[in-house]
């Protein structure tokens, strides 16, 4: 079997294979462990179900912002008809007290930087 221009073809093949197997090479030491956000001890339920919060909490927070800031509506009816004050700092952070131990766990893992804390004051973690 003769390969013409092997001096160009072989490096080209190596580049192609290298580029596409890069994700495998990058993770050669094994997969990084999944994040473990610290859940509050006192409360067992959130404003919505676990599955909903996992997938859609960012949407909920965005809706809350619009609801409070644009419509001045400070009542949110959550799971089982329970009423909540739609507020990140007063409602969410009351149970999920630590940004580092809760929010950042998954956000860092997924590589996302939500701009919540551009306006809100991040909690002091040493308290």
């Amino acid at each position, binding site marked *: *079997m*003769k*390969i*013409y*221009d*092997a001096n160009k*073809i072989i490096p*080209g*093949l190596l580049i*192609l*294979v290298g580029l*596409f*197997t890069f*994700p*495998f090479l*990058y*993770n*050669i*030491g*094994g*997969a*990084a462990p*999944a*994040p473990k956000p610290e859940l509050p001890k006192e409360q067992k339920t959130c404003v919505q179900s676990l*599955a909903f919060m*996992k*997938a*859609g909490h*960012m*949407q909920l*927070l*965005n809706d809350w912002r619009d609801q409070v800031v644009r419509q001045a509506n400070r009542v949110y009816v959550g799971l089982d008809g329970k009423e909540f004050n739609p507020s990140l700092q007063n409602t969410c952070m009351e149970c999920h007290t630590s940004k580092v131990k809760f929010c950042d766990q*998954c956000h*860092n*893992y*997924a*590589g*996302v*930087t*939500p*701009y919540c804390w551009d306006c809100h004051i991040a909690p002091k973690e040493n308290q």
Partner: protein
Amino acid sequence: MNPKESVVFSLVAVVVLVLLSWVGAGLIGMHFLFGVLIPYLAFAIFLFGMVYRIVGWARSPVPFRIPTTCGQQKSLPWVKWSPIENPVDTKGVLKRMFFEVFLFRSLFRNVKLELREGPKLLYGSAKWLWLGAIAFHYAFLVILIRHFRFFSEPVAGLVRGLEGLDGFLEVGVPRFYLSGAVLLAAIAYLFARRYLVPQLKYISLPADYFPLVLIFSIGLTGILMRYFIKVDIIGVKQMTLGLAALQPTVVEGVGSIFYIHIFLVSVLFAYFPFSKLVHLAGVFLSPTRNLANNSRFVRHVNPWNYPVKTHTYDEYEEEFREKMIEAGLPVEKE
């Protein structure tokens, strides 16, 4: 197949693929098959297929210089030549390939011909194909690189930077990425162009429509998953990272749309090396682009030249001299 059948065939094929993964993973719950086995299999087919195709091309000799020349060849010093359109050495070829691969120069040179009343023949530049193609390819590249965030932990800074650039509008939650919209718009344009321009419609086959429909569906499922039908993204990343680290895991409770998306991507990967999409590698191996037009300076010998038996006139005369003289034929040596 006629154009209508081709389009219907492509649409039906993609709908069948979507239903297959939706029923298989979403309803019956074959998560390991659709989330682990098929992606691995598709990736293996892709990698081996690409190498196979490239080696196949590399085994075909290209004995002669056959570049398409679009400008004045290098000639006498006072004749102005086009070094990029008509390269004479490797440096020129590299320049030409750079413009071809990164900027789609040959599409940029696209010319439209019109016959007007008179009769008058008009040539005009036609850039829409180039625009659609470059928008599509770069959007796809950005999306591909962005997806590296699912295969790395911690996520590389380059990927984070690209995400920031792509979502610089800071609209919506999760942040709206321009690349997704550009991709869908560009594919829609390329599809419409293929179907609405009569000449193009005439030469289009299912193999032309199917990749467009497939990639459109991949983009659409991705966008649906990101903005509308939310999935547990941490579970998704656990699965994708598991794939990349060769420690595959299945996380229960990740939405069916994820399996549909990853199945369509798997189909794209497996289909890639054996379809027109292989131009990813083929663009580097087009002899009409990657050869220098140096036939006038370098002697190119056909590699499969056979040692031909020759019988020159001198030898002929040597053999038949006496008979030729006898017959009164003129000879060069008496």
